[in-house]
């Protein structure tokens, strides 16, 4: 076999291919989101996950090409031919120790990268200057309930049920919180504000997932799960339940609608008013029905 000399066309071609491959890889994440990389772009945690994924992808591609290349080369080079004699080798201790350590080093590297990225993915940052102004809810913090460093986040309760998501916003006036504004399927949130979610379920296991806003988290009855996001661009961010929850699992959709903080406050105020009005109307019709049926003494709690 002819070995390419430093200036041979073969050598140049190899270098050119290498450069092209590297350039393609660097350009890849933007062009290939949703094909070879996860979706991101809505919230810093999703971006950091995509970033961690990409680093892993580069390492993986090198290993993939190396192993598959060696395999194909071996199959071609050592195919049975007339006069070929198989080498009766039983092993090679230093080589075997070498690749064991090599594999371990790659994984160690991946662990280190993960630990470096971990805080940016897990821990919510403070809201931006243009975000909603919030009171501190630091009293709620536990080792599992992560809050921003200044303790201020918009806490929304996410409740999974067959087959819809219900969101409860802060803002109830009663101590029991039962009059807090809520909505189904579409969650309205202010931009530039750190939103922390307390996720649970009232029937079966569901999984909260908006790809562009970070990872998914199971809603398990009896437990509360937590995640966060912070959206800078107003708009709609779509997702759906990611854990089999029954026949209509595929139809359990979720939308996060990010709006400027002023618009959010107006929406919540309107929502509270509408809900109060609807409650009052229901109360009125209950009273009317009770009178009609002669059971005037029946009071709805």
């Amino acid at each position, binding site marked *: 076999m002819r070995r390419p000399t430093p200036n041979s066309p073969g050598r140049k071609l190899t270098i050119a291919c290498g450069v092209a491959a590297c350039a393609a890889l660097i350009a890849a994440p933007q062009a290939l989101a949703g094909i070879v990389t996860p979706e991101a772009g809505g919230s810093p945690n999703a971006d950091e996950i995509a970033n961690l994924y990409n680093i892993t992808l580069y390492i993986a591609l090198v290993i993939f090409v190396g192993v598959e290349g060696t395999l194909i080369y071996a199959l071609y080079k050592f195919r049975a031919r007339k006069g070929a004699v198989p080498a009766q080798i039983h092993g090679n201790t230093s080589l075997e120790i070498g690749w064991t350590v090599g594999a371990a080093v790659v994984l160690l590297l991946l662990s280190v990268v993960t630990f470096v990225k971990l805080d940016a993915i897990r821990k919510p940052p403070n809201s931006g200057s243009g975000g909603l102004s919030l009171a501190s809810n630091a009293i709620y913090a536990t080792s599992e309930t992560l809050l921003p460093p200044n303790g201020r986040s918009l806490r929304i309760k996410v409740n999974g049920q067959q087959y819809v998501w219900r969101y409860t916003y802060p803002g109830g006036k009663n101590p029991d919180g039962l009059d807090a504004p809520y909505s189904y399927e579409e969650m309205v949130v202010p931009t530039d504000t750190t939103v922390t979610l307390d996720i649970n379920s009232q029937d079966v296991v569901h999984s909260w997932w908006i790809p562009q806003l970070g990872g*998914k988290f199971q809603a398990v009855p009896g437990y509360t799960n937590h995640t966060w996001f912070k959206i800078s661009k107003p708009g709609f961010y779509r997702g759906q339940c990611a854990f089999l929850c029954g026949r209509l699992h595929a139809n359990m959709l979720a939308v996060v609608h990010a709006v400027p903080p002023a618009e959010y406050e107006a929406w919540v105020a309107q929502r509270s008013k509408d809900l109060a009005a609807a409650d009052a109307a229901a109360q009125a019709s209950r009273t009317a029905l009770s009178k009609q049926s002669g059971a005037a003494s029946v009071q709805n709690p």
Partner: protein
Amino acid sequence: MATSATPIPQIAAHSAGREEQGWTSWLTTVDHKRIGILYMVTTFVFFLLGGVEALLIRLQLGAANNNLVTPEVYNQLFTLHGTTMIFLFVVPMMAGLANYMVPLLIGARDMAFPRLNALSYWLFLAGGVVFYASLFFSPPEAGWISTVPLSTSTYLPNGGVDAWIFLIHLTGLSSLLGAINFYATIVNMRAPGMSWSRLPLFCWSILTYALLLIVAIPVIAGAVTLLLTDRHFGTHFYDPSNGGSPLLWQHLFWFFGHPEVYIMVLPGFGVVSEVLPVFARKPIFGYKAIAAATVLIAFLGLLTWAHHMFTTPTPLVVLIFVMISSFLIAVPTGVKIFNWIGTLWSGTIEFTTALLFCVGFIAVFVVGGITGVFLAIFPVDWQLNDTYFVVAHLHYVLVGGSVFTIFAAIYYWFPKITGRMLSERIGRWSFATMFIGMNVTFLIQHSLGLDGMPRRVYEYDNIGHLQLYNQISTVGSFILALGVLLTVVNVLRSLKNGAVAGPDPWRGNTLEWFTSSPPPVNNFDVIPRVRSLEPMKDIRREVERRTGTGAAAEAGAVPGAVA
């Protein structure tokens, strides 16, 4: 087959008694070979059933918002498909292969407990029948993982989940008894001279498979028993409103479910470690490393179950522990892959169908292994978990690690089991079609997951490229099915018309080739003393020495040549 100057020993193993005849003899048999055949044929039928279910799933997903099946039927289909492939195909198929081959490979005349062996098979069949009987009523629809509370009587009151529970109990008991039998056989009944360092790697993998089953099966048996009592007897083990815990189910299930993955792939690793040296004409590279890696994978496999639960409410310390332990598994797995390539290196590779399936397995399994590392990094898993990326990953692992290796075993050992050769031409076509079909079906599913498609959805909107990706996958699944069908045709054809194999058509390394094909009931008249990892090489050398090089030793019967 290339003709060889090395004489092939003809072994005069005689049947010790009259062979049982008639169909009733198959019902009453306690012969490990017949039980092995029963297992393999039955599991292959279940494999075809599971394949049909998979094709129906792919047809439903072949178009956005398709209405081919109802959501109810769709959920039943993927539950049947997953459960069938795991509990009624891969695990018992490995049991069948091991049943037939382990006693032959270690030079034993049968399994340690022949009657228990028969019981294992009939329990397995009962499990399959009970499960599939639900087709006539209401099949289960909670997925092969049957997560609570969905699988409790509140949400799925019909009998489907109960059929699934009975399947787990019956096949679990079958596997447990089988595992005890394999363990006792391998530990006690090896040929004289077969020390642990001369035990064929397939037997190492079956030993490890048995140990994993013994550890894992009781856990799932307990978990489904709690589910059964929750469903019917008013207990609240999994009911959060009465102090129970749905997460308990996930922990118990995956404590079994993750070792189950290794239960399904380790025997396949063993097959590859047997086939590669034969067709590379070279000893296995790093025998001790492969054997040690097998045991290490099994041990680490018991520590990683919670990587299926990265998105549950779980403390950080658990997430980190499980990420690291999952990473650690990649090391012995990588070692095995390097050792297999090392075995091919500097060999003279004969591209038989069995070798092609082994090499195809390595090529495909590397992808499954690498995507497994992505999923082990828990923040990355938060994005990928429960999407089609995971479906792609697990099929790269299981179609590669289990289906391809099972097909390698079929092509490699069919001559021993039936005395007939399979057509190599059809075999190569079958391999090529399956390899292409597999990659077309599952490679694109990584993108489906990255594009936001969750698992177990009966329909999807055509957002982005979802429909295109799904159609590619559907086309691939039919190519894969065609490849499987070619091997079915090949087997049926060769049973009657295949070339007669003779005792040792591949010039194998291990003792199963030291008896006639098919072997008589007693397997061996004389059990040879084993002096190396590759006893048949020693025997052939001895034959050569006695008869003179180059002399055709076709007629020279040398029972116990090196005894």
